[in-house]
């Protein structure tokens, strides 16, 4: 693996990009389901949480801290630190 440091870094970067897209998709689903799922009815029938309509409370007020926590977990457990410079090549004696 050390022989191809660039390959390793790019493969990891691809994985991270996919995870990012996954988190984005999850945020979208949460946002969409809460907003239109709970909010499509008649405003007279709305339930309220802390004075806000239920759909708004869950999709916006809860949705955004939730995605932040999810992101923290993804970054903490799935993202890897890596050197960004080309210095790594010198270690393997391999000049680009």
């Amino acid at each position, binding site marked *: 693996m050390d022989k191809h440091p660039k390959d390793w870094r790019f493969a990891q970067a691809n994985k991270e990009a996919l995870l990012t897209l996954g988190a984005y998709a999850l945020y979208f689903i949460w946002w969409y389901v809460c907003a239109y799922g709970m909010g499509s009815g008649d*405003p007279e029938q709305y339930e309220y949480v802390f004075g806000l309509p239920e759909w708004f409370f869950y999709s*916006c007020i809860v949705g*955004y801290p939730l995605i*932040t926590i999810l992101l923290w977990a993804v970054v903490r457990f799935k993202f890897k*630190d890596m050197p*960004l410079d080309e210095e790594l090549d010198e270690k393997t004696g391999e000049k680009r």
Partner: protein
Amino acid sequence: MNNTMMTVIPVILYLTMSFGVALWARKKSESSGSSKGFLEDYFIGGRSMGGMVLAMTIIASYTSASSFVGGPGVAYKLGLSWVLLAMIQVPTTFLTLGILGKRFAIMARRTDSVTITDYLRARYKSDAVVILCSVALIVFFMAAMLAQFIGGARLFQTVTGYPYIVGLILFGVSVVLYTAIGGFRAVVLTDAIQGIVMVVAVVVILLAVINAGGGMENCIQSLKAIDPGLITPTGPKDAVPQPFVLSFWVLVGIGILGLPQTTQRCMGYRDSKAMHDAMIIGTLLIGFMILCAHLAGTLGRAILPELPAGDLAMPSLIVELLSPVWAGVFIAGPLAAIMSTVDSMLLLVSAAIIKDLYIHYRLKGDASRMTLVSIKKMSLVCTVVVGLMVFVAAIQPPDLLVWINLFAFGGLEAAFLCPIVIGLYWEKANSTGAISSIIIGVGTFIVLTIMKPAMGGVHAIVPTTLASLTAFVLGSYAGLSRSKTGQAAG
């Protein structure tokens, strides 16, 4: 001391602080001794940003006048539905960093890229791509900066009562000067300060609004009494239909990857840890700011229900609800948002002229053919001249520029999205694809914006993105087969 003076004090304090930062940054970049070292420092800060600063600078260059005045103004008219729409912007920071992230940073370092154009040049090895991108960037940025200048000066006028020109001079001249003096380092540091100012400002205004309305529950019930549509996800009389809202996921979510002032940040951070931190901090802060600002606009309707235009909502709430000093802090918030957008654009325009066009074509890409002193002078002069041109245009805005501004953000996305993102991940991408994508993307966007065909509520950016994507892929395959038969692949 009268009230307007009290309002202006926080603004002045804040502008002075920006200058201090610029001078410090200037001193710091004095230490780099070569022409190339200076360029790298002036235009990208020697790739030294840490996580907090990176997060702040992405947020600040992304949020502009519309996040603080325009957006909440629409929220005032359309209620919670517009806050829902605004929340689509929450993932912008992590999406930009996560998708471009490491790969982009590695490529930029490997190719010694300082600007987006450098990267595109290295990736596609094509003069046509570079020139098209530089021209698109210069034209669209000048128009976008103009709109920001006008927005800022009008806001200043509404809140303080001073004439339009005073506000324009006050913050227009400061932003041009500190950007010119301090370069990228000053821009990102002032961005960080501006980010903090913005966060404080939105909290203050939101609390003031909820307080004045007698608590959240009362505010919402008054809104419902005005029009029940204000508390539904589709707005009064279904003014915010689903297809329109969903196109914003393309416009602000995916499209952000095509905005050069934001993507350039992804080249300038220090290490991968800085990027990880920035993804989380950035998401947390941008969500907070957008939620507070737009919610304040919506709830403001319960307090001042009869305003003639939505754009007046934020300024009127400030004047009505806050003490003069806090009003000054709040006005510094949107001014900060405007300045931080302008400063990064200004620097990129200057970089496009000096690095991408002048040094590359006049000096054959060899910066060391100019002395350090003259390259410093030239970078500074160029930034000042571009800034002053926009400033002068903002005194009496010419129709043409106002008109171009309509296309600025969509146009930038159409031009840069595919060449940057697909070029990064798809090995077969080549210059034929990039050129056709830029021309067809920008063309489609302009045509759709002018003709306004009925598209069932879908924003013009959606078909534009599809068109430029198709053009990119088809163009790349065409270019590929041509270079295979001609054996001219470089």
